[in-house]
């Protein structure tokens, strides 16, 4: 299955409202397909990330439009937190595998 079809299927079975599903799908189709497998795997494993990712896009759109540095810093802080959560989660899996 091509990567965008796979991504679309994940987006369209998420808990986003239908209009947001279409908007998110359109947005993703503009991205470089190469790193999309990372997103697909993440969305498969943690479906809550679909909503999280879309909300991140919407927040960035609002903040970059207003040029609000404080709000931007909050987005980066949240990204940092969410990414660290992935990293810690993956490390835990690695440790469990070793044990």
């Amino acid at each position, binding site marked *: 299955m091509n990567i965008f079809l796979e991504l679309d299927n994940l987006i369209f*079975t998420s808990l986003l*409202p*239908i*209009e947001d599903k279409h908007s998110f799908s359109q947005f993703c189709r503009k991205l470089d397909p190469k790193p999309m497998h*990372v997103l697909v795997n993440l969305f498969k494993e943690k479906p809550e990330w679909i909503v999280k990712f879309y909300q991140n*896009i919407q927040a*960035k*759109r609002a903040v970059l439009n207003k040029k609000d540095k404080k709000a931007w810093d909050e987005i980066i802080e949240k990204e940092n937190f969410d990414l*660290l959560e992935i*990293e810690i989660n993956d490390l835990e899996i690695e440790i469990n595998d070793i044990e």
Partner: protein
Amino acid sequence: MNFRNNPIMKFSPEEPREKPRATEEKFFPQKERVKTAFDSTVALKDEKTLLEKMRGRAREVAKVLILTSALIIGEGIISTTHAQEKPPTPITQVDKSKETNELGQLLNTPEYRHLRGLNYLFTSPFVRIEQETLEDGSSGIRIVKRGIKDGEYDQIVGHLSIRNGELTANFGAPITEAVPIPLEEADKKKPIIQYLLSKHAIEAAPIAIDDSEIATARQFFAIQPMLPQQRETIPLKDTKPDHNVGMIRYAVDSGEKKIATVGLANCVGVTIYNPETHTGGVAHFDPNQEARGMLNNMLDELGQVDSTKVEVRLIGGWSGYSERTVHYLRQELKSRGFKVTSEDILGENISRSIMLDTATGHVTYLER
């Protein structure tokens, strides 16, 4: 590390930084400089710093986050540059140049028109062909195999694009592979299906499910819209509900409470009201999620009720999409002895928002 060349280490804490020159202060007052200090370069730099801190898969996700930021910045530049320009004409509406084109004519006569330029070109119990107008004025087509069981996902099985009035594969590439879709003989006579078959974009496949599922699919496909003559509406901004029910959620309460759910769109809402106890509930069902389980939870939460005295309403949904949810909700309510007292279901170009008042059992529509 060479600290000497590190810009952060350039000044020691004791050494005062150079003060801004008078001319700089005059032409770029402090307030203004703070405001303009944040731009796309700063934004991407922040993202890059974050990327450098991450490892493994988190680093890969951080790369995608940078891409999204870059794309959003690009969107901003484009929208600023083209702010004075006329928006592209959606191919589905009044694009005169495409009216003579066979595909253009087919796009202008969808089976259903929904919100924000989303049209259903073809629907059957097993397949839906969706078309949406993209931001650049071109069109995208999704071929969807419809789920039949309660909670079975609709599966997107193919993408097509329309570029300059011509049908292409995804992103304007030539069509090289036909998407197999379950078609009945009658479907093959529909103009849009004939067109897609002639372009080898789709090919007819057998309906590979058992007879009972076929019968169920036909049953839900036959559900027609039920639309009231009039809806009593109040502005959404004037309402302060006690509960705001989100997607695949429900709330039950009693006394003088207001329970709302907003933006049902293709989702289906159920309101239940017991006039004897002034207890009521509102649920918000997503068509791609199982409906019966949550409905039963809500019914159980109402407690012991005389099902013949309870008022049940089904509200919401889109034609060509939500029939299955309506079917399973009706079926489950019937199996538990509840009679649906009113319905406002399916239809085109609509997103309903509702509020139940548990003091009266009255349901009001909320207008955005």
